[in-house]
């Protein structure tokens, strides 16, 4: 717009700064409070500085199996991430062509974002109950005899998480391919590349940074998911479910320590993703075409 910052700029910038403070302020407070001294409570003032509550947390002091929940959530998050990347990428490629049912599939994916998570969770739980009954009643006895349930972290739980991460993955893929210049592919094909070679050596390297973004969504959304997990995880809880259970009896700062630990993982993943994206971008600049450059 015009030269010189208009007055409105300063007003809006102040508003934005307040918004950022609103977003991050409370989080920063609990990070600080998680380092309370052993005698400290849930609020300020700080009663010394220590790692007491982290030790207590990881020794399982009073709280259920946190280390186990941590491992389970991590494993599930990584599987969800991998599947989200692969399935969204394939679907993203598919949506560039025309195929029967593409409209319906798109609407189903968007509906999955909008239908309340608790409803989806309930549906999956009912589905697996019905499946269990079928197996118990109709499967050959060598299966049915020892059978307890088909529900579990990597069956119903994994499916529940994918219905949440995949729509985001697809939307990101749409954004990527909307901006994708198809002439690169045509150039590759004109020079005799097979469809697979075009995908492997032209399309994938170009979209790679954004695909890392899809992976980031896949992991973080799964890592923090509760509502869809609530009915679908079978006998073991994931980390955020344990965290939510703890909120009903908040009495000392170990819940903050758990919060800080969980968020540290999220931030580490975000940092790795952003770092990979910048590396991939730099690599693209280095190896990319010099066409149009002076």
């Amino acid at each position: 717009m015009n030269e010189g910052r208009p007055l409105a700029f300063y007003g809006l910038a102040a508003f934005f700064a307040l918004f950022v403070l609103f977003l991050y302020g409370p989080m920063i407070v609990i990070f600080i409070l998680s380092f309370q001294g052993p005698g400290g409570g849930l609020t300020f003032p700080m009663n010394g500085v220590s790692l007491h509550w982290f030790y207590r947390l990881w020794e399982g002091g009073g709280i259920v199996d946190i280390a186990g929940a941590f491992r389970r959530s991590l494993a599930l998050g990584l599987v969800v991430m991998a599947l989200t990347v692969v399935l969204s990428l394939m679907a993203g490629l598919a949506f560039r062509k025309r195929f029967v049912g593409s409209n319906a599939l798109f609407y189903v994916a968007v509906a999955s974002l909008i239908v309340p998570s608790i409803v989806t969770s309930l549906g999956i739980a009912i589905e697996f109950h019905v499946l269990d009954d079928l197996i118990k009643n109709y499967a050959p006895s060598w299966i049915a005899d020892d059978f307890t349930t088909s529900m579990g972290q990597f069956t119903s739980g994994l499916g529940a998480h994918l219905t949440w991460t995949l729509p985001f993955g697809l939307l990101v893929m749409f954004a990527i391919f909307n901006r994708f210049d198809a002439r690169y592919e045509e150039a590759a094909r004109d020079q005799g590349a097979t469809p697979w070679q075009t995908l492997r050596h032209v399309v994938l390297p170009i979209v790679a940074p954004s695909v890392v973004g899809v992976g980031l969504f896949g992991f973080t959304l799964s890592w923090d998911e509760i509502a869809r997990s609530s009915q679908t995880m079978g006998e073991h809880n994931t980390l955020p479910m344990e965290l939510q259970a703890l909120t009903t009896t908040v009495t000392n700062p170990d819940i903050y320590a758990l919060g800080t630990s969980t968020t540290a993982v999220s931030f580490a993943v975000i940092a790795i993703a952003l770092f990979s994206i910048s590396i991939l971008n730099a690599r693209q600049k280095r190896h990319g075409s010099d066409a149009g450059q002076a």
Partner: protein
Amino acid sequence: MATSRAPLESQGLPGWLQAMPFGLVFAAFFVLPLCFVIMVSFWDYNEYEMIPAFTTRSYTESFEGCLADLPNLCTMLATYLSTAKFCLIVWALTLSIGFTVAYFLAFYVRSATTQMVLFLVCTIPFWTSNVIRMISWIPLLGRNGLVNQLLMSAHLVNAPVEWLLYSQFSVALAFVHLFTFFMVAPIFNSMMRIDRRLIEAAYDSGASAWQMLTNVIMPLSKPGIAIGSIFVITIVMGDYITFSVMGGGQIASAGKIVATRLDALQFPPAAASAVILLVATMVIIGVLNRIVDIRKEL
């Protein structure tokens, strides 16, 4: 488009095959489960299990007294009314905050890099845990929290203010804190697509910044506003975690009805309340979809 190009369709695997794994996940874990929810909502049940026999019992029990007790509201209607009130409050707040933030990012930040960094700053909390972001209000709003400490030391109040936490206020605050991002992202996206020449034209025709905002930018941001509104309203409608954690177990909501019935391990009544919730959500989206064609805008 040059005519010599062969269509993309002819390349590689057919589209339906590439989309199949994606589609199968939604068939198995979304479409089929929803069918089960609808089916089971018409099943009978006893204390131990659901019984596959058709009955509308779960629905009639859900709406028990809704007609007979009028003008007093039955539990179901009262809960939906209260949830609708939260939807409206949270929608108004997230929209005004989200629009202002997006407007600043899209039109007042000059360098594209700064723009992306600031947008990322707004996005990062979205990649962290909602529950942690909720409990992070406890040290601020609790009985002995920072806000009460400040108010007391400034002698503005004599006793700690109780309604700051585990109240309607804290529920609404948490929603705004957690979900304003769902407004910022689509509105920012819409604003970035506005042809800058339209802004120039309005400017050259002598429009003030305010006229530009109300006559050019707001109408052209409508798709983003609609998408953000759908997200925020459906989240509040279906939420039970924020209501439970921030409401201290005292505040009922449409989503919480389903969760409460599930805690009792009664699938048919839970399914019936889920169907009711689904229908309510669909009605809202139907109305919003009349205002803007969502598919066209993505």
